[in-house]
């Protein structure tokens, strides 16, 4: 099929199958995370997920044999454009699709792929990421969660932290220590069910009032040995590859906010709260800083586009890809700071009738954005990576 024919067919199918309510701005409580415990506040959310999953379009480039769409990168790009054109909500938000699936395709056994990938693509199993520990943040490889070989099973003891949505997840992909004598070479990558006896989660309340992260405890949790992905003590390579996907994914949409993709433009908020003089934001200093931010956001979006174009030449992502997560975190934080500043005291409410709901949401989002330069690798770690791997600078002695 030519790309033009694919586009025409895709457009027609979306026109027919994307429910009207799925073409409205996404509300936080209608995000489709899927999983065993999914609650479908709006039934269209489930309908949209099922229709897209039936075509494999929740994981457009995965092989059809594993529940994907089997699309080429160009076709997936067209699908994304067509979804954007009609303002369609993503059918599924999934750490399984964004992070775990790509490494399973690369490292898992055939049986593991068959078991997990179709359930991820269909949104049946919701995954969480067991990476950070209280003593292993930026220095992730110092993790201590112990995994012992007990003959017919692994026995896992330890604690994870900052596990996103662990309290709502069905399964976890988890980094564990299988050799205490070696640092990077003593780590393994295992999968297990969160209902396994000995697994407990405790939500962490953030400054935004929300609890997207948990502490996760493992006490004598028994895990089948067939749940090891890749080689024993070979998990660090998989862990790093997954982090690349995570950072790519975080930055590709700029935390969802860069460039005004949330639908609320900074300049409109400023015009509404600060006022206008001859059609311009009345505060010239704020106006200049908003324009500077918008220009940086545009340059960022153009960089994402350039990297995609360069990747198509088959030479792989150029060095520009390494800066995306750092740049996206900065941009999203500056956007939220400007938004708060533009709203003035209207943006300083915590809750209640004295403040408009959209303003309250922006305020919570501003607080949440402080984590952007910490999660998925701090900005400092990202700068270290650029300095060492891209620029070739040496470690301090």
């Amino acid at each position: 099929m030519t790309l033009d024919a694919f586009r025409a067919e895709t457009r027609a199918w979306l026109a027919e199958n994307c429910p009207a309510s799925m073409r409205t701005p996404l509300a936080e409580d209608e995000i489709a995370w899927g999983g065993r415990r999914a609650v479908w506040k709006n039934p269209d959310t489930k309908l949209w997920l099922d229709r897209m999953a039936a075509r494999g379009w929740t994981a457009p480039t995965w092989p059809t044999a594993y529940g994907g769409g089997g699309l080429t990168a160009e076709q997936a790009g067209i699908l994304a454009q067509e979804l954007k054109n009609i303002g369609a909500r993503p059918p599924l938000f999934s750490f399984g699709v964004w992070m775990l699936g790509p490494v399973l395709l690369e490292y898992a056994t055939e049986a593991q792929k068959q078991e997990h990938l179709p359930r991820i693509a269909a949104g049946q199993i919701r995954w969480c990421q067991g990476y950070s520990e209280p003593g292993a943040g930026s220095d992730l490889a110092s993790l201590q969660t112990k995994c012992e070989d007990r003959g017919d099973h692994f026995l896992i003891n330890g604690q994870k932290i900052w596990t996103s949505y662990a309290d709502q997840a069905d399964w976890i992909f988890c980094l564990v220590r299988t050799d205490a004598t070696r640092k990077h070479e003593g780590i393994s990558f295992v999968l297990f069910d969160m209902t396994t006896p000995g697994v407990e989660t405790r939500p962490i309340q953030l400054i935004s009032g929300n609890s997207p992260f948990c502490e996760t405890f493992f006490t004598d949790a028994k895990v089948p040995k067939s749940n090891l992905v890749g080689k024993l003590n070979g998990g660090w390579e998989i862990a790093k590859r997954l982090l690349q996907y995570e950072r790519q994914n975080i930055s590709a949409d700029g935390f969802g906010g860069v460039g005004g993709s949330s639908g609320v433009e900074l300049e409109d908020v400023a015009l509404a709260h600060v006022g206008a003089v001859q059609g311009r934001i009345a505060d010239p200093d704020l106006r200049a800083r908003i324009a500077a931010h918008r220009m940086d956001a545009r340059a960022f979006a153009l960089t994402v586009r350039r990297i995609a174009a360069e990747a198509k030449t088959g030479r792989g992502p150029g060095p520009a890809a390494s800066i995306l997560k750092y740049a996206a975190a900065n941009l999203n934080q500056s956007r939220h700071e400007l938004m708060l500043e533009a709203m003035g005291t209207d943006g300083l409410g915590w809750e209640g009738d004295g403040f408009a709901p959209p303003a309250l949401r922006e305020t919570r989002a501003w607080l949440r954005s402080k984590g952007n330069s910490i999660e998925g690798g701090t900005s400092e770690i990202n700068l270290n990576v650029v300095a060492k791997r891209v620029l070739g600078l040496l470690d301090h002695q």
Partner: protein
Amino acid sequence: MAVLTEEQSILRDAAKSWVADHAPVAALRRLRDAGGWRAGFDPATWRDMAAMGWAGVIVPEAYGGSDFGHQSLALVLEETGRTLTASPLHSTALVVASALILGGTAAQKHAWLPSIAAGDITAALAVDEAAHHAPETIALSAEKSGSGYVLNGKKRFIPDASSADLIVVAARTHAKPGQTEGITLFLVERGTAGLATLPLHTIDTRGAADLTFGNVAVSADAVLGEPGQGWAILEPVLDRASAGLAAEMLGTASQAFDITLDYLKTRTQFGQSIGAFQALQHRAAKMFTELELTRSAVEASLEAIDAGADDIAALASLAKAKANDTLHLVSNEMVQMHGGIGMTDAHDAGLYLKRARVAEALYGSTSYHRDRYARLGGY
């Protein structure tokens, strides 16, 4: 780096090897030390560049050019920007060539484009009259006189004007400074009676000049485009000028960064390379980030120009503003990270710093382009 065609790759490689062999930074230093600020370039160097066809990259084939487009010309500008090559390439082969291509009659194109493409003449665009780029505020007057016009007024700090054979001058035939209507473009030749040129000894040795027009009489066929409608040509020409200069500045900033990065790897203190210190590593990584973001903006603006897209204005302002800020940052860090040696005239850091500030001011500072970007965005 943009995805290049085979011809573009050849062009870029040719430019890269030519600047290395014939126009290293040492050439600019020699020009400066020999009092070359009056002309602003070495004629032999310019002949060389023209012989390679670079003066005709955007000129249509019918007028002796290769019609390769702005993306291609920018590849050359980026390479010459790397070594601070002093030449009238930007003013002549990009800015004035664009004005003629966009606004010239067939007769005007025939009269000037082939000589531009061949490198036989150099040319300059005279717009600004005060210390800051503000094209709407043109006041230089052009009064109707018989069948022609008489020009009176001053132009300030016009790049490459000190030895230009042809000046495209933006004048006001009606309306008031600040208004875009009433602007008319004229083609004025070197040596025209009443045109006085004051070459400026600038920090970058690049041949800018003040021009004074005292009752300069020109004929009606010197008008480029329609009388009073010059803005329709001038604005897109300025966008092309901004995008092309941004490409040159991207080259300058990239090279300044490469030189600095090399120094971080070779200079040792406390028993190790200074690039092993995290304070410098993070600043280097931030510069790299800005360079990559700037490259995306510059390439997108050039692509939009060649495609005739409808957002050329916003992208050109974005490209110039990003190039301004990034070159500003990198040129300052180049001095600082080199320490004492960076303060000496013997080192090239000062040459990069001096060119940086001139290029930042030409065709609009960051605050000019930021304001314009906001205006275009409706806020």
